């Protein structure tokens, strides 16, 4: 069916494809004057028409052309060359390096394309090919390591879990810290409501031409009130003029479980001494040799298989071109009963309606259905049930043949009932389903008034619906779930964007170029949702609201709307490519702020100085200094200014105050001010590019939604909270260390550090814990005044003035119980490296990405939980061993002497001392990991010609194949509650709470071009 639709669309385009008059065929090779190597991908066009071809990997081309016509050879970084077609059938072109050298156009805010040389702020670009080499279906994951300053963490190895991207540190304590997501000029949703996958993952990485990352406030300043967390500007592929080219590829992935936490296999169920069948803890006696022990972690995780088919076609004629693509992705996962099913189709076209009027339009349809076996709470904890399940039970035994639940332990004394079942029951019987259908449409009308005035109007809409359901079937243990429970949400979401832009660009006097952009935009968001919660299915196996007694059903409807308007201007002066100065201003009006705070102004000032222009040999290198300042903002969540009433479900009904939000009419926009200084070099004929940036960013009046003191009469409220700072340094080195005729090695090294500090809290707050980042009281994800923002507070052992741990008279370390909110960890890495390499040898290419992280703490709450339950490996290693704690004992005279008392590390110690001391579970983590290795081979032209194919490629790839780390748990890339932290917001990066490890996967792919 899907294929039929695909073919239908394809043939529609084929029908309008035109034919070119048959004349002669000219072939030839385009080489570089520099190294005499072929230039692949160079454009060969017939002057005055829009038809043309591209050179292949060897730089060869073939084109049909009439005698007397002129061929235009061009490629980025080279001087364009023209050759008139005579009688020769072979026309080679040797392209000289562009004297300016280094022209590179990057996409900046609002889709404005700018010359990177005169850019006054930092923009990092990821090419679509580099993204695709990562073989990640979630675009955010594909960016890992490719951007200096982007901290990307996924919430785990289940396909429906979201990933979080944070640029240059967090700016908000709650809510979304993620950058604005723009696809082809319009805002798209990256939400992950109900803990589902972040919705940017809907988009097909195969369609992406490039991604521009606007990390700093100055770069994103034209987005004004949306710019506090930066912006990710995604540009999809465009239609290419000329003969239709199409490509079909198939990839197959095998997913295996990555690094998992280790368990002890010595002690059976119990609570401290003998065997106790009723206990879920593994603190019993030692297993007898005749007792079976199941390796439940291995038994639980499966091998997943994913199939991915991509098709795209592009082509065009003089006045229009098109691009279309289709993707079908279906697969299982390392988690049983987990499945993804995704289909997407993108159609883009562009037409020259009149001499100066161009129309661009696109439509993207996506269907993304995900079924997940593991369902977690809003604080994460997905895999805890698996890691803590006693090893004397077989995790795969969960039901009888007739489907009835198999309780491993059941007790009903009349006054109470206890039932225990394998977590596999929940996985197999109570999965959660998320279904999304999405349509993104986008149209742009561009009018070129004259050679220096351009006007454009863009209108687009991202519309999707999301259905989420979580059924708990009857028979599932739990007091109110015995008869089953249903939770469903259905929502329609839309973002509508209208943008008007006018661009004026001309030399006002010689050598002084002025660019002015004036524009206005409107953005409307609407979410209409329905939710259904009910208990007790009438008929046991129909899981629908129809099958729940009406009296047990609670339904709710939500309608959230937001309107924003903005006008903005951007004025830039360039003097001789040497000095540039830019100033932007934008004023936003947002409906979510109180009337008197509704208007928000975001200015930016930036300048650059290309000092290499001062030198004689300025054409062979490039050096630039830049500086910028910007103030940008963030508005409030929807409906945070008024207190509304919510239905009271108890007897008598009516209404009561809504606990989820208490109105705050004093809200103001959050502002972020950022200074940035940068330097850029291009050396050795552009073989080495260096880009470095230092930033200092301060966020004021953070908008926080949190539980507030109850004497206010509110439970949760949105308020402005203090001030925090991020400072950091980013360095990006891109180079081509080796380049010979057959062999090229290109590499990019991204490195960054970020240091944050909480500068101010409102009122008297000193420590601010994140609701969804505190699985246990021993340690909590929190921010503390004057400390790095993504902190961990908790308990530590008592230290004496010299810093030695104080040991009690009983020989055990003494917990500092007077202060249970000490700053005991900083979740931000100290230093990050992403090292991207690409080797090309003849028709082979090999690319891989090393990702290094140094420092930064992980809160290993998984181990804490497992130790409390007696199942962690350390319990097996240390339980009941004699041990002398390193520390000092307080004497009666106030002095300290070294502890010499030997004690037993018994149950009581582990549970009452070790497991309640947060510092025992804070680990400073380093890692070296290979995110991907991809080996590709393109069949040489002589074979493809024989096959009558344009291209044939084969690819072998591995994702996350290597992980070297000092972390004691599973995979240390953790983010327990995901980017929206269970809806409560705040980052839980670095909190490992029953995390599902990232999968290690291997893929094989074949791609054929026609």
């Amino acid at each position: 069916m899907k294929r039929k639709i695909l073919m239908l669309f394809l043939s529609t385009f084929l029908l309008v494809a035109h034919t070119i008059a048959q004349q002669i065929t000219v072939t030839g090779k385009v080489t570089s004057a520099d190294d005499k190597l072929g230039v692949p991908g160079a454009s060969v066009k017939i002057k005055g028409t829009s038809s043309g071809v591209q050179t292949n990997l060897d730089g060869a081309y073939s084109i049909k052309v009439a005698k007397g016509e002129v061929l235009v050879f061009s490629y980025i970084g080279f001087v364009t060359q023209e050759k008139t077609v005579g009688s020769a059938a072979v026309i080679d072109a040797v392209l000289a390096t562009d004297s300016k050298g280094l022209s590179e156009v990057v996409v900046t805010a609002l889709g404005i394309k700018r010359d990177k040389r005169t850019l006054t702020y930092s923009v990092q670009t990821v090419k679509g090919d580099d993204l695709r080499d990562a073989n990640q279906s979630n675009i955010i994951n594909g960016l890992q390591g490719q951007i200096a300053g982007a901290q990307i963490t996924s919430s785990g190895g289940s396909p429906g879990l979201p990933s979080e991207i944070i640029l240059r540190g967090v700016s908000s304590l709650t809510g979304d810290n993620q950058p604005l997501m723009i696809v082809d000029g319009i805002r798209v949703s990256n939400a992950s409501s109900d803990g589902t996958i972040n919705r940017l993952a809907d988009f097909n990485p195969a369609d992406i031409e490039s991604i521009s990352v606007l990390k700093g406030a100055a770069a994103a300043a034209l987005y004004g009130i949306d710019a506090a967390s930066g912006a990710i500007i995604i540009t999809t592929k465009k239609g290419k003029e000329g003969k239709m080219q199409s490509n079909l590829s198939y990839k197959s992935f095998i997913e295996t479980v990555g690094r998992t936490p280790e368990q002890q296999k010595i002690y059976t169920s119990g609570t401290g001494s003998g065997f106790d069948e009723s206990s879920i803890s593994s603190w019993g006696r030692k297993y007898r040799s005749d007792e079976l022990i199941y390796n439940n972690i291995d038994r639980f995780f499966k091998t997943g298989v994913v199939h991915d088919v991509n098709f795209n076609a592009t082509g065009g004629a003089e006045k229009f071109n098109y691009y279309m693509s289709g993707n079908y992705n279906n697969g299982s996962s390392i988690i049983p009963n987990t499945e993804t099913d995704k289909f997407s189709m993108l159609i883009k076209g562009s037409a020259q309606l009149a001499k100066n009027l161009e129309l661009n339009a696109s439509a993207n349809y996506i269907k993304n259905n995900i079924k997940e076996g593991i369902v977690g709470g809003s604080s994460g904890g997905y895999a805890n049930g698996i890691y803590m399940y006693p090893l004397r039970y077989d995790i795969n035994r969960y039901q009888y043949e007739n489907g009835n639940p198999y309780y491993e332990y059941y007790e009903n004394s009349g006054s109470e009932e206890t039932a225990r079942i394998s977590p596999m029951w929940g996985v197999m019987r109570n999965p959660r389903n998320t279904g999304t259908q999405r349509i993104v449409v986008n149209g742009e009308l561009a009018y070129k008034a004259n050679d220096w005035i351009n006007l454009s109007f863009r209108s687009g809409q991202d519309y999707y619906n999301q259905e989420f359901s979580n059924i708990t079937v009857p028979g599932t243990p739990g007091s109110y779930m015995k008869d089953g429970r249903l939770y469903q949400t259905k929502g329609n979401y839309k973002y509508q964007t209208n943008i008007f832009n006018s661009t004026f660009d001309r030399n006002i006097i010689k050598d002084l170029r002025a660019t002015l952009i004036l524009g206005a935009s409107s953005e409307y968001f609407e979410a209409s949702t329905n939710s259904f919660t009910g208990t007790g299915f009438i008929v046991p196996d129909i899981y629908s609201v129809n099958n729940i007694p009406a009296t047990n059903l609670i339904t709710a409807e939500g309608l959230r709307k937001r309107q924003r308007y903005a006008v903005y201007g951007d004025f830039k002066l360039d003097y001789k490519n040497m000095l540039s100065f830019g100033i932007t201003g934008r004023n936003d009006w947002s409906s979510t702020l109180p009337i008197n705070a509704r208007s928000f102004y975001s200015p930016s000032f930036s300048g650059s100085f290309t000092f290499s222009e001062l030198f004689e040999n300025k054409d062979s290198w490039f050096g630039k200094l830049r500086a910028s300042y910007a103030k940008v903002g963030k508005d409030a969540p929807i409906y945070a200014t008024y207190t509304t009433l919510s239905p009271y479900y108890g007897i008598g009904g009516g209404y009561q105050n809504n606990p989820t939000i208490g109105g705050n009419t004093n809200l103001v926009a959050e502002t972020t001010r950022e200074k940035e200084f940068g330097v850029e070099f291009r050396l050795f004929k552009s073989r080495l590019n260096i880009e470095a940036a230092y930033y200092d960013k301060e966020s004021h009046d953070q908008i926080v939604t949190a539980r507030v003191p109850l004497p206010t009469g509110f439970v949760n409220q949105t308020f402005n909270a203090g001030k925090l700072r991020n400072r950091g340094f980013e360095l990006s080195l891109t180079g081509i260390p080796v380049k010979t005729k057959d062999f090229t090695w290109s590499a990019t090294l991204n490195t960054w550090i970020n240091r944050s500090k909480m500068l101010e809290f409102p009122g008297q707050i000193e420590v601010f814990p994140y609701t969804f980042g505190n699985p246990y009281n021993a340690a909590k994800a929190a921010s503390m005044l004057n400390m790095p923002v993504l902190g961990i507070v908790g308990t530590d052992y008592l230290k004496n003035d010299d810093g030695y741990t104080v040991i009690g008279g009983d020989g055990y370390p003494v917990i500092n119980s007077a202060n249970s909110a000490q700053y005991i960890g900083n979740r931000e890495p100290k230093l990050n490296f992403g090292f991207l390499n690409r080797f090309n040898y003849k028709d082979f290419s090999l690319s891989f990405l090393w990702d290094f992280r140094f420092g930064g703490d992980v809160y290993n709450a998984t181990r804490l939980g497992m130790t409390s339950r007696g199942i962690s490996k350390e319990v097996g290693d240390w339980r009941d061993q004699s041990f002398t704690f390193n520390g000092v004992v307080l004497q009666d005279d106030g002095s300290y002497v070294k502890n010499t008392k030997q004690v037993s590390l018994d149950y009581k110690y582990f549970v009452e001392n070790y497991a309640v001391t947060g510092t025992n579970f804070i680990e400073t983590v380093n890692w070296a990991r290979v995110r991907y290795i991809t080996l590709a081979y393109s069949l040489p032209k002589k074979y493809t010609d024989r096959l009558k194919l344009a291209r044939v490629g084969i690819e072998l790839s591995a994702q996350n194949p290597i992980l070297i780390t000092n972390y004691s748990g599973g995979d240390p890339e953790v983010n327990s509650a995901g980017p929206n932290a269970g809806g409560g917001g705040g980052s839980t990066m670095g909190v490992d709470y029953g995390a599902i490890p990232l999968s290690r996967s291997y893929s094989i792919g074949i791609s054929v071009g026609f």
Partner: protein
Amino acid sequence: MKNIFKLIPVLLIVILTSCSKNLDINIDPKQPVTTAPNLRLPAILGNMAYHLYSHARFSSYHSFYITSRYNTSKVEALWNYNDVTRLGAWRWHYFDVGSNCLGMIERAEVDGTYNYRGVGKIMLAFSYLTATDSFGDMPYKEAYKGIYYPKYDTQEVVYAEIAKLLNDGIADLNKSNASDPTMNGTADLIYQGDLNKWKAFAEAVKARLLLHTANFQNGYDAVLSAVNTSLSGFSDAVFKYPTTPTKDWERNMWGASIARPEWNFAEIVNMLNNSVSTDLFMSYMTVGEPGLKFDPRLFKLTTPGVKNTYYGAKASEGLVVPNWPVPIPPADPVPPVMDDFANLYNGHWTADNSPFPYILKEELYFIKAEAAFYKADHATAFDAYKEGIKLNMQRLGVAESEITAYLASSKIKQDAASLEISDIMVQKYIALYLQAETWVDLRRYGYNAKAYPGIYYPAKASSEWAGKWIQRLPYDNQTEYIYNPQEMARLGATARNWVFTPVWWADKSTLKN
């Protein structure tokens, strides 16, 4: 061409003017901002039952009604509140009851009507009293002002404000007239709109309040005056759940279904399935006479366990029963199990459909008895004492013949002259089974055996408390300690043994020795 440029500013002006209207969309169109007071009262009344329960859920253990089967349970056995994240009670007062009362009062003030306004003030006062008796000092003057670090008023100030609220409430009710909106059984689930009963209830709250301080403020006359005024028109204030509830919102929180209507109830679900009666409670319920082994109310307050035996466990020690039968050797000792105890569910107050008491009429009689006793009016005290017992037994459905037999038993004083304070307090203890008010009485009397014969310090209460008795509930750990650290420090609430510091009326009480 040039016209287009002329159009731009015009276009912008048109857009901007129409824009400001489109920006006024930040009020949820699916939820009301205010409603008529009759639509707010049911939530206030239902939430008040939850509020009372949220105290009783914990105080029942501190009052020796019940004890956990686990001698390691942190709050119930060890009296350790230091790891509690949320307790519920703080929120149930300030938000679920209090803020809704204020919302209803505000609306009634805007409408210029008095009936709901008066009831709102009385309910707010009752909620404040319930809260401060567990928490002690708390924000009153700076509460509901949007201040994140309000000043905590002393309990003395809070008490004065509660008394004022009650008087204001009564005054409002006196001003009510025919133009007020209808208040009937659909909104007023307690008194079906009978304002005189609400006034009597306000007097009952006042009597309860005055009793707490009467011993050191020489206030027994005022107590007697309030209690007599109240009794002249009082009708039981109980929140009724449907006979056959179908969802958790319709179930009593003490019920066997362990109702948890929403996530915010998680911290206060009952644990009666893991709890048993204490030996102290059983000693009060044991008559030990031929044909009258137990107080007949025992079979109404609890249901028989599997073995139909009625043991009582030592508070805090788990399933430890004093004088547990020693088996004849060589039989192995069999420790007590849950089945040896009464089932705490499905008693009069502990079924899914049980009513939840605000204030019962018998409490007023015991208040009267106690006040009269200290005024040396033993005759009045004795009459009220007997009246209270009788009323309670009738409420629980004890047969008249059994009531007569019990009243004639050795458990009951037969004349005014022999009446002791412990007689009144023990009977009040039984009558207020599982109610948080009992914990107030215990603390007023400093857990004194003169008032509560046989009371003892629980063996498993952590040695860290150095033998101190539990005196209060902690403030909300998740908000007050974060937003208001200086006030917490000033009060001393940051100390690990904060809950062992007596509240004002317990500190001042002269009844402790």
